C-alpha cells in the first residue's frame, strides 16, 4: 500500500475549503449586472389556468421581465423529458404527458412553475411575483397512491387514462401461482414505503449568463451530472447547441439524488439570461425545496411469499402501486421498475418471482430517485416479508435467512429477476453482525429493560443492492435513453504534477481525495501533487455524473485505465531514455526501472521527457496525457446484514435505538474513513425514514409537511453510535475490486429498525414512519 494510497484513511483534501468558509457554491457566485429571479408557483394542486395577467408585475419597481409558458413555447423551448422508457402491459410505451417548464394552461401540483419574474433585486422580484395575476379554476385533486388509478378519480392528464403511467408486470405469473397453490405456507404483508423529501442541505440554485459575443450560455447549477444536463437541455429542450452551452456545477452541498434531474427552474434561467441579455440568478429557498424538489419512494404494496415445510422460499408475488407525482421527472419511470423489481430476490434463492407495478400520476410533486432509488423499497419489502414468514413458520429471523441464502460458492448468481449478482458471502456477514450486535446477550438486556418498564426488540436486515450504475447495453435494452459508462482523463503537467478530470461529480462524497488515492497508488505520484477536477463541461470530457453509487465502481476504473495507458507509454519513454528494451522495464512506486538493476527514472521525469522530447522514441507522440472510457460489465452488488436493537417506551411510543450494528461487503475499501462516513450517513437516512420522516399532502393536495416544523429529520440525539464492520468479497467484474457504498445504509436500515420494533411489541407489522403515536397505538392493540 502506497502512503496515502488505497486503503488509507486520508483526511479529505476538499475539507479545508469547506471548513474555512471558502467553498464555492452556486449561490456564492455573483456576477456584474446580475438580476434576480423569483418563480410564481401554483397554490392549487390541480387547476386550469384561464389567463395570466403580468401587466402589474411588469410595471413593478425594478422588474426587468416577466415570462410565462407561452414565452418559452414561442422560443421553441421543449418540455422537460423523462429519459427511460418502460413498456406497459398493453405493449405500448409508458404514458408520457407533457411536462412544460412553465405551465401551459394547467397546473398539476402545489408548487408547479407558472411564471418567472426577473428584477434588479431579489426583494423586487418577490414583490412583483406576488403581483402576477393568475386566473385559476380549481379542480378536485388526486393525492392517494393507493387509489389514484381507481375508477371515478379526477383525471390529471388526458394522455394517461385512470392516471396510469404504466402497468408493468414481470415474471412468470402462472408458475408463481402454481407454486403458491402447492405451498406449505403462504405469508403475506401489506406495506407502505413512505414518501420522503430528500433535503440536501444546500437548496437548488441556478445562475445563467449569456455571452452575446460568443453566443454561449454558461449555467452554474447545483447538478450531480453537468454533462447530462447539457445534453438534455441541448438535444431535448433546444436551449442551445451543446458546444454553445457550458454547465458548471461547482461545490454542491449534497444531492442524494434530488439534484440529478433537469428541473424547470434550471432550464428557464438558462433561457431567460439570453432573453434579457443579463445574468439571471435564482436561489431556491427551503420551502421551494420541499415543494418542488423531486420527492422519493411512495409505494403501496401487497407482498406474498410461498414457503415449503422447511421455510424455504418457493415463490414471491409482489403487487405495487408507485406514485410518480404530477409529471415525469427525468429518471422517474425507472425507479419503481428496474431499480426495484430486479432486487426482489434479495439475498435469497427464491426461484420464482412475479410482480406487477402500477405507476400512477397524482397531484403531488414529481417523484424520482432518492438515495437508494428503488432498492430501499425492494429491500424493505423483502426483509419485512421474510420476518413475517419467519414468525409464521416459527423460525428465528436469522435461521430462516440462513436456510435461504445464496451460497457463498454460487456466485456469480443469476437471479430470476434479471440481475446476476457478482460476488457475495451472506452467511459470513450475518455471523459477523450477530457477534458485533451481541445478539446472544439480547435476551438478558430485554429482561433488564422490562424491569424499567421498557420493551426491547432486535431486528435484522440482510440486504443486497445493485449499484455501480450501469452497463450501457443492459440499460439500453431496458429503455434508458443513455449509456452509463464513465470517463477519465489523467494529465501530467510538464513539472510532474497531475490533474485528473473525472466525468463524475463530488457533492459530499470526497472524490477529490479518493480518486487522488487511486492515482497515488497506481502512479506513485505524491498525493499533494494530484488534483481531481470535476463539474465543468468546459474542462472535463463527457461523463454521466454521480448517482447510484457509481463514481468509484465505474469512474474509478476509468481513472485506473487511464493510468494504465500512462504506465504503458511511460515504459516506452523510459526504455528509450534508459537505453533498455521495453520488455525489461518495470514500474513500481512511481519509478520505471530496468529489471534487476537500480537504474531507473521517476514518472515525473518521464512526463517532462514527454513534453520536451529531445531524445524520444521514434514514432511515439509527445505528451503524457491519457483518457479512458469504461463501460462496466455488470452492476455491483454490495450486501450485508444490519442489526438494530431498540428500546420502546410503551407509555409514549417513543423508540430509542440503543444499538446499531452494520456489517457490509463493499469489496475493497479505498478510504475506510470515507466509507464509514457513508455508512453512518446512509443509516441515519434510514433512521429518518423508519422513525421520523413522512412527506404528507392533505386531501386537497396541499403539502402539510413543508418545513422542518413538521417534517422531522434525525438529529444527533436521534441516532446512536454505530458499530460498523466489513465482510468484503471480490467482485470479478470490477478491475478495482470495489463495490459502491453511498446508498447501502439507507437501503439496509429501515427494515432492520421496523423488524426490531415489531419484535419489541410482538406485532406483525407497523408502517413507516413508526412515530411515537403509531407505536403507542400498536403497543395498545398488542397488549
Amino acid at each position, binding site marked *: 500500500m502506497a502512503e496515502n494510497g488505497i486503503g488509507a484513511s486520508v483526511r479529505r483534501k476538499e475539507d479545508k475549503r469547506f471548513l474555512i468558509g471558502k467553498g464555492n457554491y452556486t449561490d456564492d457566485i455573483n456576477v456584474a449586472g446580475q438580476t434576480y429571479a423569483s418563480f410564481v408557483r401554483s397554490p392549487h394542486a390541480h387547476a386550469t389556468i384561464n389567463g395570466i395577467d403580468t401587466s402589474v408585475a411588469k410595471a413593478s419597481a425594478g422588474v426587468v421581465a416577466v415570462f410565462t409558458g407561452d414565452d418559452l413555447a414561442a422560443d421553441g423551448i421543449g418540455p422537460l423529458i423523462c429519459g427511460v422508457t418502460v413498456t406497459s402491459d398493453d405493449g405500448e410505451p409508458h404514458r408520457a404527458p407533457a411536462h412544460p417548464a412553465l405551465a401551459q394552461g394547467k397546473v398539476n401540483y402545489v408548487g408547479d412553475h407558472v411564471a418567472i419574474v426577473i428584477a434588479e433585486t431579489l426583494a423586487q422580484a418577490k414583490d412583483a411575483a406576488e403581483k402576477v395575476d393568475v386566473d385559476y379554476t380549481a379542480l378536485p385533486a388526486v393525492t392517494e397512491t393507493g387509489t389514484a388509478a381507481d375508477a371515478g378519480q379526477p383525471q390529471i392528464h388526458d394522455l394517461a387514462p385512470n392516471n396510469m403511467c404504466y402497468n408493468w408486470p414481470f415474471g412468470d405469473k402462472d408458475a408463481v401461482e402454481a407454486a403458491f397453490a402447492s405451498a406449505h405456507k403462504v405469508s403475506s404483508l401489506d406495506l407502505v414505503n413512505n414518501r420522503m423529501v430528500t433535503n440536501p442541505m444546500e437548496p437548488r440554485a441556478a445562475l445563467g449568463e449569456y455571452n452575446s459575443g460568443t453566443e454561449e450560455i454558461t449555467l452554474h447549477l447545483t447538478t450531480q451530472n453537468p454533462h447530462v444536463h447539457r445534453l438534455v437541455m441541448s438535444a431535448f429542450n433546444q436551449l442551445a447547441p451543446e458546444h454553445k452551452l457550458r454547465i458548471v456545477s461547482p461545490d454542491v452541498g449534497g444531492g442524494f439524488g434530488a439534484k440529478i434531474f433537469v428541473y424547470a427552474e434550471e432550464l428557464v434561467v438558462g433561457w431567460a439570461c439570453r432573453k434579457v441579455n443579463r445574468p439571471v440568478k435564482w436561489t431556491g429557498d427551503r420551502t421551494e425545496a420541499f415543494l418542488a424538489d423531486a420527492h422519493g419512494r411512495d409505494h403501496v404494496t401487497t407482498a406474498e411469499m410461498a414457503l415449503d415445510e422447511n421455510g424455504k422460499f418457493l415463490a414471491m408475488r409482489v403487487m405495487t402501486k408507485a406514485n410518480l407525482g404530477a409529471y415525469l421527472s427525468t429518471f422517474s419511470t425507472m425507479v419503481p421498475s428496474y431499480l426495484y423489481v430486479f432486487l426482489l430476490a434479495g439475498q435469497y434463492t427464491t426461484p420464482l418471482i412475479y410482480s406487477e407495478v402500477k405507476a400512477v400520476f397524482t397531484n403531488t410533486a414529481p417523484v424520482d430517485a432518492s438515495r437508494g432509488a428503488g432498492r430501499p423499497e425492494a429491500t424493505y419489502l423483502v426483509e419485512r416479508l421474510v420476518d413475517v414468514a419467519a414468525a409464521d413458520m416459527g423460525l428465528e429471523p436469522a435461521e430462516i435467512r440462513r436456510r435461504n441464502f445464496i451460497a457463498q460458492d454460487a456466485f456469480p448468481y443469476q437471479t430470476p429477476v434479471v440481475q446476476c449478482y457478482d460476488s457475495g458471502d451472506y452467511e459470513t456477514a450475518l455471523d459477523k453482525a450477530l457477534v458485533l450486535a451481541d445478539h446472544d446477550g439480547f435476551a438478558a438486556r430485554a429482561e433488564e429493560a422490562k424491569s424499567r418498564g421498557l420493551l426491547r426488540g432486535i431486528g435484522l436486515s440482510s440486504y443486497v443492492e445493485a449499484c455501480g450504475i450501469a452497463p450501457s447495453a443492459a440499460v439500453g435494452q431496458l429503455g434508458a435513453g443513455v449509456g452509463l459508462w464513465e470517463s477519465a482523463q489523467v494529465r501530467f503537467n510538464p513539472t510532474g504534477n497531475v490533474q485528473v478530470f473525472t466525468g463524475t461529480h463530488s457533492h459530499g462524497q470526497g472524490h477529490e481525495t479518493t480518486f487522488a488515492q487511486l492515482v497515488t497508488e497506481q502512479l506513485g505520484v505524491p498525493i499533494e501533487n494530484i488534483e481531481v477536477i470535476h463539474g465543468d463541461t468546459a474542462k472535463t470530457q463527457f461523463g454521466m455524473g454521480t448517482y447510484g453509487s457509481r463514481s468509484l465502481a465505474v469512474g474509478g476504473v476509468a481513472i485506473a485505465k487511464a493510468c494504465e495507458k500512462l504506465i504503458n507509454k511511460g515504459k516506452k519513454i523510459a526504455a528509450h531514455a534508459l537505453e533498455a528494451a521495453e520488455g525489461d522495464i518495470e514500474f513500481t512506486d512511481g519509478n520505471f526501472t530496468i529489471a534487476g538493476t537500480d537504474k531507473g527514472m521517476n514518472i515525473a521525469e518521464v512526463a517532462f521527457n514527454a513534453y520536451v522530447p529531445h531524445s524520444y522514441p521514434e514514432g511515439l507522440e509527445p505528451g503524457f496525457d491519457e483518457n479512458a472510457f469504461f463501460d462496466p460489465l455488470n452492476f455491483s452488488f454490495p450486501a450485508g446484514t444490519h442489526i438494530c436493537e431498540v428500546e420502546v417506551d410503551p407509555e409514549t411510543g417513543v423508540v430509542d435505538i440503543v444499538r446499531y450494528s452494520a456489517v457490509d461487503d463493499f469489496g475493497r475499501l479505498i478510504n475506510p474513513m470515507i466509507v464509514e462516513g457513508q455508512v453512518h450517513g446512509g443509516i441515519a437516512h434510514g433512521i429518518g425514514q423508519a422513525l421520523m420522516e413522512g412527506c404528507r399532502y392533505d386531501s386537497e393536495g396541499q403539502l402539510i409537511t413543508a418545513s422542518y416544523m413538521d417534517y422531522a429529520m434525525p438529529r444527533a440525539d436521534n441516532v446512536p453510535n454505530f458499530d460498523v464492520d466489513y465482510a468484503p468479497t471480490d467482485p470479478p467484474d470490477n478491475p478495482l475490486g470495489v463495490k459502491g457504498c453511498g446508498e447501502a445504509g439507507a437501503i439496509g436500515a429501515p427494515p432492520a429498525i421496523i423488524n426490531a420494533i415489531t419484535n419489541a411489541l410482538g406485532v406483525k407489522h407497523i408502517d413507516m414512519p413508526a*412515530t411515537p403515536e403509531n407505536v403507542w397505538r400498536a403497543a395498545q392493540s398488542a397488549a
Partner: protein
Amino acid sequence: MYEFSYHKAGSVADAVEAMNKAEDGKFVAGGQTMLPTMKHRLASPSDVIDLGGIAELSGITVEGNTVTIGAMSTHADVAASTDVQAMIPALAKLAGGIGDPAVRNRGTLGGSIANNDPAADYPAAVIALGATVKTNKREIAADDFFTGMFETALAEDELITAVSFPTAESAAYMKFENPASRYAIVGVFVAKTGAGVRVGVTGATPCAHRGMRLEEALNNDFSGAACEGVEIPVAKMNTDIHASAEYRAHLVKVMAKRAVVACA
C-alpha cells in the same frame, strides 16, 4: 421580508410612543417567532420596535420567596441563573429545554408569553407557579393572562416588563417534544405549594391552561398513580399530523405523572 421601519427603543416610554405612532407596529424581543414569520412574508408590520436596548427590561432579582425575571431575559439567561437554579430549579430546567442553543440565546421570557404560542413552554410554568405578569400599566395574575390561542390580556400598547414567580415547595416540568419542531406536543408543569398543587398544561389545547382535574386528584393524593385515574377531555385536545386528540390526552396524564414523580 417586506419593507418596514425599524426603531430601537431606549426606554419603555419610547417603545410605547413608537407603537402608538405606527400604522401597524410590532414589538420585537428575541425575534425567534417574529423574524421567521416576517421572512416567510406571513407578517408585514409597518414598524418593528426593538426592545433589546431597554435596560429596565433585563435582569433577574430575588426578594424573599419571589424571583422576578426581566421580560428581556433570554432563555439562556434564565437557565444559567444561579438564583433561578437555587430557588425554582424546575423553571431553569424548562428554560434550558426551549428550542436549541441558538434559540435560547435570543428568545426571551416576555416575548414567549406575549406571543402565547399554544406549544410554548413558559405559559405552563407561569400558570402552575401562579406568577404575576408585570406590564408598563399594571400587574396581571397568571390565571388572567392567557386568554386564547396566540391571545393574551395585553393591550396593544402594553409591554411586559417582568414576571414575578413565587417559589414552590417542589416543582417539575415534563415535556413531550414534537420530533420535528421540538415544541411541546404536551408539556405539564406541576408545582406543589403551601396552598396546594397547581398544574399548568401547554401544547395540549389551543391555549395553555390550569389542569383543574389533575389538581383535584393531586391535592387528594400527590403521586404519579393519582394522575392515572384522571379523565382528560379528548374533545378539548388539539389534533394535528403529529398527535391526535386521543394521544394528546393520554400524554397529558403521562407527563403529569412523570412531573409528579420528578417533584419528589
